C-alpha cells in the first residue's frame, strides 16, 4: 500500500513536470526559451516517471526486491532486467536529450535566428 502511494506521488509529480514542460513549450516566446521548457520534460519529468516505475519494479507486486527478500532468485530476474532497462532509458534520454538540444540551439544560432529579448517585446514576431 505504502509502495503504491510512493509510486503514485513520483508518477504524479513526474506527469506534472512533463505537462509543465509542454505548457512552457507552448507559452514561451521563442525557440531558445522553449528549449529550456522542454528541458523540464526531458530531465525532471522523465526522471521522476522512470524513478516511479523503478520503485514499482523493485517493490511492487512481484518486484525484484520483494522476490529476493523471499529467496526467489529466479522470480526476481524479470524485475531486475526491467530495472536495468529503465535506468538505460533514463540515461539515454538525459544524454541524448542534452546533446540534441545543444545541436538544435547551435543550428538555430548558426542559422541566424536572433533570440527573443525582453526589450523588443513589441517587435517580436515569433509567437
Amino acid at each position, binding site marked *: 500500500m505504502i509502495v503504491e502511494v510512493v509510486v503514485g506521488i513520483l508518477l504524479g509529480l513526474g506527469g506534472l513536470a512533463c505537462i509543465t514542460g509542454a505548457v512552457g513549450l507552448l507559452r514561451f516566446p521563442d525557440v531558445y526559451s522553449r*528549449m*529550456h521548457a522542454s*528541458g523540464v520534460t526531458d530531465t525532471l519529468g522523465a526522471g521522476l516517471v522512470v524513478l516511479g516505475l523503478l520503485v514499482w519494479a523493485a517493490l511492487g507486486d512481484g518486484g525484484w526486491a520483494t522476490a529476493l527478500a523471499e529467496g526467489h532468485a529466479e522470480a526476481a530476474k524479470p524485475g531486475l532486467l526491467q530495472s536495468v532497462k529503465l535506468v*538505460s532509458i533514463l540515461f539515454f534520454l538525459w544524454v541524448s536529450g542534452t546533446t540534441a*538540444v545543444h545541436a538544435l540551439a547551435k543550428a538555430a*544560432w548558426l542559422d541566424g535566428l536572433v533570440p527573443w529579448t525582453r526589450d523588443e517585446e513589441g517587435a517580436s514576431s515569433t509567437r
Partner: protein
Amino acid sequence: MRHTLALAGVLALTWLLWSGHTGALLLGLGLLSVAATAALARRMGLVDGEGVPLAVVRPGLITYLPWLLWQVVLSSIDVGRRVWARDPGLAPRMLHVTPTQATLTGRVLYANSITLTPGTISVMMEDDDILVHALHAEAADGLASGDMDRRVTALEGPA
C-alpha cells in the same frame, strides 16, 4: 587497444543485461555480435578517446553527479514555476563563459552540464569560450559565479 577492450566490455555487459539470456547458443551468438561490432567500430575509426570516452570516468563523479542532479531538480522547479506564473519574468540573454578546464573532455562535460540544467543552454563552444543562452538574469548570474565550472575543474584536476 584499451578503448577497444572497454567498448567490447560495455557492449557485452549491455547485451547480457538487456537480453537476460544465458543459453550456450545465444551467448555464443551474442559474443559473436559483440566481437563483430567492436571490430567494425575499430575499422571505422570510431574507437578513440572521443568515441569511447574513458577519460570521463573518474572517481570525482561520485560527488559531482549527485550535485549536478540536485542542480537539475532546482532549476527545473524554477523554470516550471515560471511556466505557470502569470508573468513568467523571462529576460533571455546570451553570455560568454570561459571554461577553466584543461582538457577537452572536461570542457565538454562542463558544456553538457550547462545544457542539462534547464535555464541555461550552451549554444556554441569554441576553444576557451562557451556561448550560453540563459532564460533569465538569475540563471545567468548563477552560471557567471563559476560554481559549476570550479566543480568540473576539480573533477578533472587530479589525474
